[in-house]
Structure formats: structure tokens, C-alpha cells
């Protein structure tokens, strides 16, 4: 009975079209924002911030990007890792070429660079569909990976092949580089992710989101409504790559502080795909949930033997982690193929009548 929407009548289309029309949802959102902006920085220690929350937020952003392309538009992409890499390297080059301009500007610009590459990768979607298109994204992944290693201009000819992030500031406070504190970095990432999530939500609830879903569900009928398929698909590629690019730039500048080309390999693409599928295709909340599970779970599993006092070699723990994650993926797919987001919705449904049985 907690989650009741009876009695909440809408007087206008405007209020009905609101993103969270139900009061309880809005309260829930307020609580989440309060926790994110206030509670966690106050109560969390460095480990929580640096190893849990910052990666979680950054990867969720990438997951949103992939979800826009694969979940909403139905175009399977196996090149997410490469797009994130494009953003990272673009931000690095721009920032080292023009150090005077604020790093945040360059992070946004790197998104545009990634979007441009995304459009190129999406061009074959005019002729190719479904699984075969995924192979095109795979081609992009391997090609870009090769570029990250071979084109030494990208990493300023650093002999180790890696990029190291220069220290940058915002309003005089260090936000990248060794002197930036986790709290500072956390807030910057949080604000960026929050704003971009809001934008993604706006897009998805409007005409463009509907167009994408129409293309996904039945592109023939969509064409008949006057939807231009190529334009919609390229837009999806562009926006999705933008998000992935920014995510990659944040990853290098505000999380890792450095990166080797191997950071953006195919494994990252698969990881992001897991997050999106387990979280729920076509659901923004799902992107967050899936990322939470896939990112936080291995950390938990790794620290578990220590916490329980079991003497296991680090290598064994690694192997077990692989096996448990694999088993969990299968388990979730069996239990709820539509992902955690659907489970969440079902949970809300149950809350409508709880504590009554029906």
C-alpha cells in the first residue's frame, strides 16, 4: 500500500507527461539525489569514493550511451570500448595541445569527436542489419584499438605507449592529476553524470526516443510513418558515441589518471554490454543497476574471502570471480531476461498492494 498511485489525478497533459508522474517516484528520486550529493561524500571514505562510486558513475554513463544505441534503437554494438577510447585520446590530445582552456570543455569536445567517429561506424547501417551490423562495430573496435597503439601522435610519442593525465584545475581547485582529491573528483563526475542523465532522459521521453524505439520494433512500419531510417540510426550512433566518449574521457582524467591502449580493448565492450543487458535494455535506470552489479560485485567477491577469513590465493579468487560472474549472468538471464529494471518494476507493483496479498 506504500506505492499507491490512486488519488493522484493529473489535471493537465503537462503533468501527465512528467518523467516521474507518481509522487512516490519523485520522493525516491529526491532521496537518491540527497544520498548522492550529501551523504556519500560526508560518510564515505576514500576507498568508497575512488574505487566504488567514481567508477560506478563513469561506467554508468557509458552504459547509458550503449543502451541508447542497443536498447532503444535496437542496434547491437560491440565497439563501446573503442568509442570510450576515442573520447579519452581526444580529450588527452586537446588538453595537451591547448592546456590553457578548461579541461571540462575538452571533455565535452571529446564527446563530439567520438560522435563523429560513431556516425562513420554507423553508415553501413543503411545496408546491413542486426547481427551483421554488430560485426561492423567489431571492425571499428579492432581498427581503433590498432590506431591507439600505432598512431604515436595520439599519446604524444610517449615511449611506453601510455597516456598520463596532466594536472588540471577548475575554479582553482585541482580536479585531475595526483593532487586532485577523491571528493573533488567525485563531485565533478557526479554533476556531469547527473546532467547528462537528465538530457538522455529528456531525449528518450520525447519524439526522438519514440522514433528510435519505432525503428527498433518495426522499422518497416516506422518508415511508413515518415521516419527516415538512416537519419535516426546515425543520430543514435552519434548520441550514443558522445556519451561513451565522455565516459572514456572521464575514465582517464578523473578515475584512472592514466591509461594504456589495453584499457579500451574488446573486453571493455563486452563488459559494457553485460551491464546494459543485465540492467535492462531500453531502461536508463537499468543502466545504473546493471553497472552496479557488474562493477561492484567482483570487488565484493574479491574482498569476501578476506572478510570471512578464508585463505585463498589471489589467483584462485580471480578465477572464482570469473566463474561466479558468468554464472550470475546466466542466472539473471533465466530469471528475468528483461533485466534488473524489470525486476524493479515488478517490485514496485508488489509494493502497490503490500502488505495485502492481492
Amino acid at each position, binding site marked *: 500500500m506504500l506505492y499507491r498511485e490512486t488519488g493522484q489525478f493529473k489535471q493537465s497533459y503537462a503533468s501527465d507527461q512528467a518523467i516521474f508522474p507518481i509522487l512516490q517516484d519523485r520522493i525516491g528520486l529526491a532521496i537518491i539525489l540527497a544520498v548522492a550529493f550529501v551523504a556519500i561524500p560526508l560518510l564515505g571514505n576514500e576507498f568508497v569514493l575512488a574505487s566504488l562510486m567514481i567508477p560506478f558513475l563513469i561506467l554508468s554513463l557509458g552504459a547509458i550511451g550503449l543502451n541508447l544505441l542497443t536498447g532503444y534503437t535496437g542496434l547491437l554494438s560491440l565497439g563501446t570500448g573503442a568509442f570510450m577510447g576515442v573520447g579519452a585520446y581526444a580529450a588527452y590530445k586537446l588538453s595537451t595541445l591547448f592546456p590553457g582552456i578548461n579541461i571540462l570543455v575538452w571533455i565535452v569536445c571529446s564527446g563530439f569527436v567520438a560522435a563523429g567517429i560513431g556516425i562513420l561506424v554507423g553508415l553501413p547501417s543503411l545496408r546491413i542489419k542486426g547481427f551483421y551490423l554488430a560485426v561492423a562495430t567489431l571492425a571499428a573496435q579492432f581498427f581503433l584499438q590498432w590506431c591507439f597503439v600505432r598512431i604515436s601522435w595520439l599519446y604524444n610519442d610517449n615511449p611506453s605507449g601510455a597516456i598520463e593525465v596532466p594536472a588540471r584545475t577548475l575554479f582553482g581547485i585541482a580536479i585531475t592529476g595526483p593532487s586532485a582529491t577523491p571528493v573533488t573528483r567525485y563531485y565533478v563526475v557526479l554533476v556531469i553524470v547527473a546532467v547528462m542523465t537528465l538530457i538522455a532522459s529528456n531525449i528518450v521521453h520525447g519524439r526522438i526516443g*519514440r522514433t528510435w*524505439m519505432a525503428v527498433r520494433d518495426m522499422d518497416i512500419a516506422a518508415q511508413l510513418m*515518415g521516419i527516415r531510417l538512416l537519419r535516426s540510426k546515425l543520430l543514435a550512433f552519434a548520441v550514443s558515441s558522445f556519451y561513451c566518449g565522455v565516459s572514456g574521457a572521464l575514465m582517464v582524467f578523473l578515475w584512472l589518471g592514466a591509461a594504456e591502449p589495453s584499457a579500451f580493448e574488446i573486453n571493455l565492450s563486452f563488459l559494457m554490454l553485460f551491464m546494459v543487458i543485465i540492467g535492462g535494455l531500453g531502461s536508463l535506470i537499468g543502466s545504473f543497476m546493471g553497472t552496479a552489479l557488474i562493477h561492484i560485485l567482483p570487488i565484493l567477491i574479491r574482498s569476501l574471502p578476506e572478510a570471512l577469513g578464508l585463505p585463498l590465493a589471489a589467483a584462485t579468487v580471480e578465477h572464482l570471480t570469473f566463474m561466479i560472474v558468468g554464472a550470475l549472468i546466466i542466472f539473471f538471464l533465466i530469471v528475468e531476461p528483461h533485466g534488473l529494471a524489470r525486476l524493479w518494476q515488478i517490485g514496485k507493483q508488489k509494493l502497490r498492494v503490500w502488505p495485502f496479498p492481492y
Partner: protein
Amino acid sequence: MSGASETLLSVEGVSLSFGGVKAISGVSFDIRKGEIRAIIGPNGAGKTSMLNVINGFYHPNQGRITYKGQTRSRMRPYRAASQGIARTFQNVALFRGMTTLDNIMVGRTLKMQRGLFWQMLRFGPAMREEIEHRRAVEDIIDFLQIEQIRKTPVGRLPYGLQKRVELGRALAMEPDLLLLDEPMAGMNIEEKEDMCRYILDVNKEFGTTIALIEHDIGVVMDLSDRVVVLEYGHKIADGTPDAVKSDSKVIEAYLGVAHQDDKASGPAREVAA
């Protein structure tokens, strides 16, 4: 339906084949503005293929299509849509992942202008546009009496309601020409009556020209102004319902061989046809 009836659409000598199969052979007919034109014929006659040609999905091997005065050798889906041709499908082509409301809103896509920038913001012009089109969509929902299912994902709806939602989506385009592919297939008597009423209302109130593929002869006779009969890709009759009904070729092909010496089924034939 009187007065100067100009031709809205005409097809001339259209032929279409897939591989070795000739789906349509040299078919010509026209559709006048404001009329309800039925296309009937046994299964495999090429009726759906004909609609697909009009829509621009299939490109005819021969022949021409004239729509609103412009003649082309083939249509393109985008042009068909932007010039006011809307369509429903034999096997309900709704967007299953979306609600009724969203499905019908997709029908308004062509009329919505606001680009990516305003969509990102939501507040302001994009929101106003959404609400304006929401109003139009609500009018359609009201007209089709589907208010109670507006937020239901269409995949969960029973077949009859899905067909109604699909009609709504087509209507949302405010089409000049509405192509309906077996809109009443699989419906019971009441549902059929409702659908007939909607089709007639759309034609009378909005002046929409309608081309309709239908198997139920009773519906065809009641609703349509003129009928085209196809069989194995050829046109075998073209005229008013009464004329077509008594055409011997049609009776042989479609309605059954005429039982002239069978007294018992004589009166039955009058009623059934």
C-alpha cells in the same frame, strides 16, 4: 459522395514479380477522392502486394503510379508518408515495446519539428509541441474509445484492440489516403460493427479517402462505393458493389460457382451475397 470526384490515386499497368512468381500482372484502376474503394479477391490475388506498391515498399517492374497529379514509376515510403498516405497491416505492425499512447504519438512524427537541441532541454518549445500533439492524439483515442488502454504496452492487448490502435496510429498522420489491409480479420460481429462505424466516420467526417482490403463480402457491400476484384494478380472486375456482385467472373472466382439449377440454395444465395 457526389459532385466533381477527382482521381486521387491511379495505377496503370502495374506488374510485380518476385523471382519467378508474378504477383501482379498489368493491373490498372483508380481511386477517387473521398470514396471508399474495396480491393477484394481470393488469397494470393496480390492485394497486399498492391498496397505495398502504393506505399513504396515494393517497386513495380512495370507500370506507373499517379498520386495527387504526380506520376512516377515507383513510390518511396518516405514520400508516400509525407504526402498523406497511411496504412494498416495484415499482421498488425505495432511497436510492441511501446504503449498505445506512444504508438499513436509516433504517427505524429512527421508533424513534429523540434530538433535534438530542444529535445534535450524538454522545457520550452519541445514540451509545448508534445502537448499540442498529445491533444490531437487524445482526440483520436476518444474517437476510437480506447482511453482505458492508453498506457498499456500494446504487446499485451488482445488482437481486436491492437487493430484498433493501429487504425489510430494511421489516423494520427491525418492522411489523405488511408490504406487498410484486412482491418477486420479475426474479429467477432460486434468488433466488426465498431470498426465499420469508425471507418465510415473517418470517411464522412474527415473526408479521408479509403482503400480497403477485406474478405467479408457483407462489409464490402455495405461500406464501399466501388470495388476492384483481383485474382492471381489480374484484375477481373471493377465497379459498384452491385455490379461486381453479379459479375459471373467474380462469382466463379471468388464467391463460388453459381448454383443455377439448385432450388434449395436459391434464396440462400440472395441472402448470403
